[in-house]
């Protein structure tokens, strides 16, 4: 099908999950992702699949835990405050090695915050966000077309490694409508040997995360860590634009990367050699590629819709090899390309000036 | 459901209770439940769990009522009753086994 269709981001993500063979969706209304819930409320019963609007995000994520324990392909979606409620179950699911895809359509925070887009849940997503030593792979689309591709990829990673996977997007992408060629991908069914189905003619199975003997839990942690190393080796994703001759690279993901793309074009036409390094997997973070790029640059500018979260991983990755500057807006404000260009110029020509102070010039309060 | 005792066709002895003493925790709830009072903790024994296990002290008075088995949290009891044919003819009906 080569015809382009106008699709809303949230609905495209939902339909991509349906096409990928999602068996069950559990959710709770929260802005700006209610459209995912509503799309699934219509589509899943149509197909005889499972849909529940749970009593809360706590209910939804735990329903997902139960369904995933039986080997079902499960999608859950929410936004910041709801994702926080899901942290406990995410830790349990990582520990119990259950596959699942969780979509966070980020909004302004912290707290109840605002309903406009942000990227302030990066720490939460990439640093485990629940208790204990674990990670979940995090994928960040920056267009609706890319979101449609990454949803089945997320299910594949989840099932290949037996892990929850998060898709981190924001309210802008969720609410926007873009023309896309709807390349929805169907996925095969893997066979599992660990799922719960009733101990009929086989020994009983237990899906658990409690290992009271410390030696046992350490052994289990080593298994999990080995899994994360394997994922770090195989599932890094990033995209680069105009990096070959760049003197400054903007590092940004999601909506920030879209703004940065326009800023890059404007800066280039003003003679500045700007490139864009766009992480697509936020965990595992493309540290190796970034570190390889750093020596060729005079500066890096990280742009986020937050007070600065991914910038820490960028600084860790380049290990002091190149100055790293940061520009961001919080609260649901989205930087304009003009602001980003000014931040690029500041980083290149006034490196002592903190680009974030430019926010005052843009009319916002610091 | 009938079980066969090892060996003989007509065994001379049988017990109304078989007790998994290694699983008993000496909670005494069976002593409370037992109406004829045929159970007691065996204070001369400490089992692998560290408790005095229960012991049948008067098998003749045991009526195989299984109240002990019903209250036991650790399911240590297997309760036997004499086969219907061997019982005193208290019942008008023909035995079904």
């Amino acid at each position, binding site marked *: 099908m080569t015809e382009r269709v106008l699709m809303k981001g949230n609905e495209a993500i939902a339909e991509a999950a349906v096409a990928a063979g999602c068996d069950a969706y559990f959710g709770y209304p929260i802005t700006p992702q209610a459209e995912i819930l509503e799309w699934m409320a219509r589509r899943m019963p149509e197909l005889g699949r499972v849909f529940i609007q749970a009593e809360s995000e*706590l209910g939804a994520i735990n329903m997902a835990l*139960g369904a995933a324990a*039986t080997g079902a392909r499960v999608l859950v979606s929410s936004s910041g405050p709801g994702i926080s409620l899901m942290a406990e179950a995410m830790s349990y699911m990582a520990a119990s090695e259950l596959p699942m895809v969780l979509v966070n359509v980020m909004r302004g925070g912290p707290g109840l915050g605002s309903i406009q887009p942000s990227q302030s849940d990066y720490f939460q997503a990439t640093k485990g966000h629940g208790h204990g030593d674990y990670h979940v792979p995090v994928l960040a689309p920056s267009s609706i077309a890319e979101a449609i591709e990454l949803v089945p990829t997320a299910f594949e990673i989840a099932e290949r490694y037996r892990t929850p996977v998060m898709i981190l997007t924001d309210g802008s992408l969720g609410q926007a409508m873009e023309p896309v060629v709807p390349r929805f991908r169907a996925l095969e069914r893997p066979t599992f040997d660990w799922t719960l*189905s009733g101990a009929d003619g086989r020994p*009983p199975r237990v899906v658990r995360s409690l290992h009271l003997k410390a030696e046992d839990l350490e052994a289990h942690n080593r298994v999990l860590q080995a899994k994360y190393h394997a994922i770090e080796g195989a599932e890094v994703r990033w995209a680069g634009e105009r990096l070959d001759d760049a003197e400054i690279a903007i590092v940004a993901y999601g909506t920030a990367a879209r703004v940065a793309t326009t800023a890059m074009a404007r800066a280039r036409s003003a003679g500045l050699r700007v490139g864009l390094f766009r992480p697509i997997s936020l965990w595992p973070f493309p540290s190796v590629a970034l570190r390889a790029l750093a020596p060729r640059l005079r500066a890096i500018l990280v742009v986020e819709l937050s007070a600065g979260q991914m910038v820490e991983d960028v600084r860790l990755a380049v290990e002091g090899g190149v100055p790293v500057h940061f520009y961001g807006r919080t609260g649901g404000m989205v930087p304009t390309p003009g602001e980003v260009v000014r931040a690029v110029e500041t980083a290149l020509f006034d490196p002592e000036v903190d680009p974030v102070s430019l926010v005052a010039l843009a009319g916002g309060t610091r | 459901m009938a079980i066969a005792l090892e060996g003989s066709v007509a065994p001379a*002895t049988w017990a109304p209770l078989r007790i998994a003493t290694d699983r008993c925790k000496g909670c005494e709830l069976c002593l409370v439940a037992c109406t004829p009072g045929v159970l007691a903790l065996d204070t001369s024994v400490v089992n692998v769990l560290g408790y005095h296990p229960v012991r049948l002290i008067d098998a003749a008075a045991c009526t195989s009522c299984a109240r002990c088995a019903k209250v036991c949290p650790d399911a240590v009891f*297997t309760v036997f009753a*004499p086969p219907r044919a061997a019982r005193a003819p208290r019942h008008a009906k023909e035995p079904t*086994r």
Partner: protein
Amino acid sequence: MTTETPTRTTRLESDESPRIVYQRPELLTDRSTHYCPGCGHGVVHRLIAEVLGEMGLGPRTIAVAPVGCAVFAYDYLGLDFCEAPHGRAPAVATGIRRVRPEAFVLSYQGDGDMAAIGTAEIVHAAARGELITAVFVNNGIYGMTGGQMAPTTLLGQKTTSSPGGREAVLHGYPLPITEMLALIPGVAYAARGSVLDPGTIGKTKAFLRRACEVQLEGTGFGIVEVISNCPVGWGMTPRQSMDWLRDNVAAVYPPGVIVDRGRPALSLPVASRPEAAADDA
């Protein structure tokens, strides 16, 4: 396993063998439980093993284990089990039930799990009429964490977090969770049993069986609360704990069938007086 030497002898006629009146149900594993001596969890596990075994449901069951003393239920019952976070068992059971229509789904929770942190999950599973059978072991205390007050702790009862005894003004009243749930139309069966003595244990087993039938019939959500003892948490011997259960707990949480919507002709009003509930058993 040591065998008692018999002290009664009797000569058996012909080659008839003694009948087995009672034996350990097959669905109980061989492991000795970690539960304290006299703990009601052991009885409830045994009843579940008996009922599921008699109904042939073992191979189809997917059960959900709580957080609390009974977290290890999966070591003692030979069933597929999923561990749930504290309070979330009804949601986990819902997820399982919806994607596995052919399974038999059982959840097992204590009073903290269901009546404190998990109140929302149990109410909404009941409201959805979820086809699961919920077992609720109510011993009025948080056993595993060392004996703190539970939502079902009795007024006046001393616990490590109500050392002066529970007072309504400080701690609120004990929650009648099962009566609350029974109001919900999605609940097809709600009953309360106890582990007090062989008679009540037999009735509890019947309640459990009926709650399982209700799931198989597809009429709705089934819950069996079992008032139980916690000798160590209550600071009593097992014998004393049964006295407490009979003399104090049963008055506040009276055993009986609270509602059975699966048999409309026999549907009973929500119990309002202890003696009314006792008659329903």
